[in-house]
């Protein structure tokens, strides 16, 4: 069953085409990763799905019903986890969840039970009477998620739900997403952390300039880049590394530097390993480790968009 079906979706802001005639389908039970650099159009797609924006052209079906003709049905079946934490500081954790769940028709004992259940799900049951102003960033993020769960939506849209939180809370959220998926929820997930997407998403779509430029499982996407391999060079210090000089080496396609590791994406057809090593030795840069790998999702993204996910 298709939970989301988008056909020819277009949205313009003035002369700028934010979403350009995209089509995609999300099956029930998927965790669908929506990736793209800033301005790629993924937020616009999410905002249209959430009824925050009107589309200019196209059709969207949620659970096989037209979003325009039956907006009440689609709203009832969607849970939103906005990128900005959207909770009331003056209400307790339980009151927050209960208020938002009440807007979906829940009432009485059922409302309270479902709200406590949602708090338990995100690990905040014992904080239900506490006010968010006393919460850490991670706890607020978890409450932000709980507010979208109590009405048990079929589709949950999570827009960067782990921004700016500690690893422990991030891990908790990722586990929660997996658990929700196991319970039958379909999830649309956006993130700037590639490792999160790689870990939890069953299908990934890469957007750029308002278009879907690639779609598939992690393995399918990695297979797109068949003509590239990567050389990982770990050095003592990167201060003397000149990216432009490295790029001048025959066959080098792109360079990524993180901490003391340089990832050199190179054409498979060109054997340039000796030239790469020569660059480091002639510049007196001590190599601590060197390995050759197949392209990962980050490389795929970089190759397709020309930018890193966090740029």
């Amino acid at each position, binding site marked *: 069953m298709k939970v989301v079906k988008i056909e020819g979706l277009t949205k313009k802001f003035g002369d700028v085409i934010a979403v350009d005639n995209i089509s995609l389908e999300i099956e029930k039970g998927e965790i669908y990763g929506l990736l793209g650099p800033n301005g790629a159009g993924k937020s616009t797609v999410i905002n249209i799905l*959430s009824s*925050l924006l009107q589309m200019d052209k196209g059709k969207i079906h949620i659970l096989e019903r037209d979003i325009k003709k039956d907006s009440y049905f689609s709203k009832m079946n969607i849970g*939103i986890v*906005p990128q900005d*934490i959207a909770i*009331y500081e003056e209400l307790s954790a339980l009151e927050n969840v209960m208020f938002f769940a*009440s*807007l979906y028709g829940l009432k009485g004992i059922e409302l309270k039970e479902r709200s406590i259940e949602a708090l338990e799900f995100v690990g905040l049951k014992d904080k239900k009477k506490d006010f968010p102003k006393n919460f850490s960033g991670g706890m607020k993020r978890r409450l932000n998620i709980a507010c979208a769960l109590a009405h048990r939506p079929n589709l949950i849209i999570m827009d960067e739900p782990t921004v700016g939180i500690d690893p422990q809370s991030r891990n908790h959220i990722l586990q929660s997403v997996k658990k929700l998926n196991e319970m039958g929820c379909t999830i649309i997930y956006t993130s700037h952390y590639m490792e999160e997407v790689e870990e939890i998403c069953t299908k990934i779509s890469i957007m750029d300039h308002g278009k879907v430029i690639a779609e598939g499982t992690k393995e399918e996407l990695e297979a797109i880049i068949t003509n590239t391999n990567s050389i990982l060079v770990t050095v003592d210090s990167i201060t003397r590394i000149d990216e432009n000089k490295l790029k001048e080496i025959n066959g080098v396609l792109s360079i990524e530097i993180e901490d003391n590791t340089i990832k050199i994406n190179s054409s498979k057809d060109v054997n340039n390993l000796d030239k790469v090593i020569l660059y480091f030795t002639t510049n007196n840069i001590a190599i601590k480790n060197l390995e050759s790998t197949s392209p990962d999702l980050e490389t795929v993204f970089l190759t397709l968009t020309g930018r890193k996910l966090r740029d």
Partner: protein
Amino acid sequence: MRNILNIFKNELTHNFRSAKSMSMMILLPIVFMLILGSALSKNFTPTMNKMEAIYTIQSDKEMSSTFENFIKSAKQNGLTFNKVNSEKEGFDSIKNKKNICYVKISGNPCKIEFYKNARFSFEADFAEISLSTFVQRYNALSEIKKVNPTAYYRSISNNSLDFVKVETLAGKKTPDSKSYYGLTMLTMIIFYAMYSGTFSIKREKYSRTGTRLICSPISKHEILVGKIIGGLLITILQIAIVFLFSIYIQGAYWGTHIGIIILILLSEAIAALSIGIGVSFIFKTDAAIYGILNIIPMLFSFLGGAFFSIDGFSKILVKIADISPIRWVNQSITGIVYNNDYSKVPATLAINLGIAIIFIAISSYLFKKEALQP
């Protein structure tokens, strides 16, 4: 309906939990009432100056004789009339504030002209009302004389004939300082419900919860109505506390027609809340919104006579003051309480509810989905 109730309950919870603004809305008018009510009490107590009037008379003997009787009668009530020789002397005396008024009687048929100095408004009012009574009786007697001379002479020989009746003046009550500030501070603070209206919308922007509201299956009308009803109930609570304080602690007089007064106050609260909500949609920047919130209630309160009546100021200012819904509310309630005068009530209710309808319509129109988002 259930969604309206949910929004309404949410509004109540937020307002009750912001103790600072709740207490400000209650304590501020109470403190003002106490300070202004006692500090300015003297300005509201009419003190009688010596009531000395002057007159010139150039009329027939009968009028002169009748007016002499009036002068005697007026003297018994503390109003002394002294004759001057010329009009110029009469006018100069008024200009120089030596006398409270100048009465010029001339011609045949007789014409009575009355000139007063604004400084002695209360005393001059007394003289004017006395003179008016005299004129009415004189006209009546003249008519009697034409149709029944016997009855006329019996009337003028009657010792009980009294040209001065002061009931009219005594019946025209005016509020003392406690009652005046009890009313004006209450109507001023009701208009500050604008803040509640604005912040009920701004809260959704600041806390980013507007996004959730728009994504949920609830209409914009349910959101607006729920917010107005919630704000109204909070305002009613604040009004009730200040109102009861003004009666039982301050000792303000609210008359006997409390029901209609409460209706007028409620209409003002609805107008203020609606303006507040409208402002949050009309103006995009916080600076503009805060500017409006700081200026409008204070300006309308001033024009409405919150701190002192502006009726003694220039006619232009008094005309301009009519733009203030607070002035209409204050005048309506004063009319009801002190003169049993309901003439301004329909217009006041129409103005307040008209304002509410206009601003709710504007809010509804501007309630774009982006409007609640940060």
